[in-house]
């Protein structure tokens, strides 16, 4: 999954609707939701809010979001064994995560990083990118490229 191709303009175009969705789900004012806001640390989101956000985005953008599989998506080509050991993300896994979650400032990757704590890194931009990836995947499925 290559994020280099997701431009800032694409993210900014999506942000207002995503911000509104996040605000509705966590029960805060839309103005409080910034692109760089951490869902858990800045907006106080709990696990049920993540479920809520994913389903709201799914309905709003009419894409199938692989909820619960964000971490799996982040893992990319790494096997589970390469990505984590006993619930702690490996060095290769952290490198992979830093790329996948390029919107997260480096200082927020506190090591050792537990797999269960990965959602603590998610920002509003993470969800914007998630929607863009799924929109592309949906478009690719709907219009197969000519050989």
């Amino acid at each position, binding site marked *: 999954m290559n994020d280099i191709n997701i431009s800032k303009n694409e993210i900014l175009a999506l942000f207002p609707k995503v911000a509104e969705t996040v605000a509705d789900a966590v029960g805060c004012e839309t103005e409080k939701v910034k692109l760089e806001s951490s869902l858990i640390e800045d907006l106080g989101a709990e696990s049920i809010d993540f479920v809520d956000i994913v389903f709201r985005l799914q309905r709003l953008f009419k894409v199938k979001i692989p909820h619960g*599989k964000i971490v799996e998506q982040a893992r990319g080509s790494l096997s589970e064994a390469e990505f984590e050991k006993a619930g702690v993300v490996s060095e290769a896994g952290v490198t992979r995560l830093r790329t996948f979650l390029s919107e997260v400032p480096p200082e927020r990757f506190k090591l050792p990083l537990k797999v269960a704590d990965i959602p603590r890194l998610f920002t509003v931009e993470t969800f914007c990118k998630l929607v863009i990836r799924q929109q592309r995947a949906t478009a690719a499925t709907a219009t197969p490229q000519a050989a």
Partner: protein
Amino acid sequence: MNGHFRAFSFVDQITGLRPGISIEGRYLIPPEVNTFPSSLVAEAVGQLAAWGAMAAVDFLRRPVAGIAGMIELLAPALPGQVLELRADLESVDIEAVAYSGSAHMNGASVVRLRDCVGPMVPVADFDDPQALRDRFSLLSAAGAMPGGFEGLPNLGLQPNGGEKGRCARTCLSVPIAVPFFADHFPRRPVFPGTLLMHANIETAENLASQVPLPNGAEWRTERLSDLKLRTFIAPGETVEIEAKWIEQSEHGLSVTVESRIARRLVSSAEIHFVPEVDS
């Protein structure tokens, strides 16, 4: 008698199933019970959806109450009547089930649910997976003997202050020894989210009753929206519920309701009322 599949089970028979897509069923409201509140009708629809979701993942996971985008309370359900239930599964996997659903009585809509999401949890933490498979087989064939539910026990909802017409507070002391915990759930008793919703509605209705209406009209509870349950509530816990006035017009009254345990938010919802003149 063991209360499993009796004390808090509201599906007698599964009458139609398109695996992973939709499920239909019915429930006879026991004639002996005094009332059968709308929250229990919503529970019946949710339980039917849960059967559909569990069957889709071979009873390894089960949904628990989480989010309801909208619950419309369209008509009262009456003891002795049969509820025709339906749930349409928008999606289901090991993480969550998303569904909409409805309950009808004599062809008329009683309750309608939209945009509901139930997080899936490991079945074995709450119940015996094989017992659930066997029950599903029974419900899908001849159906179960109706009549296990003996009525709602006193939930001990006490007024807890407020500000007339603006805010009403109640205190819910979750009982410890009540029959429904044997069924909800056998391995881990959890206070049903729909009973918390019932307490939320009562608290909001208490507030609405303090908001005057002209010409002898009264507020009728029309719908709940953005209902979210954040955590499990265990037997013996004390829940503080607060309903607050948000806005009012000639068309209706909106109230927010929040429930907290030791200050921690455990649920939130909006409840909407419409004026109605008793004919």
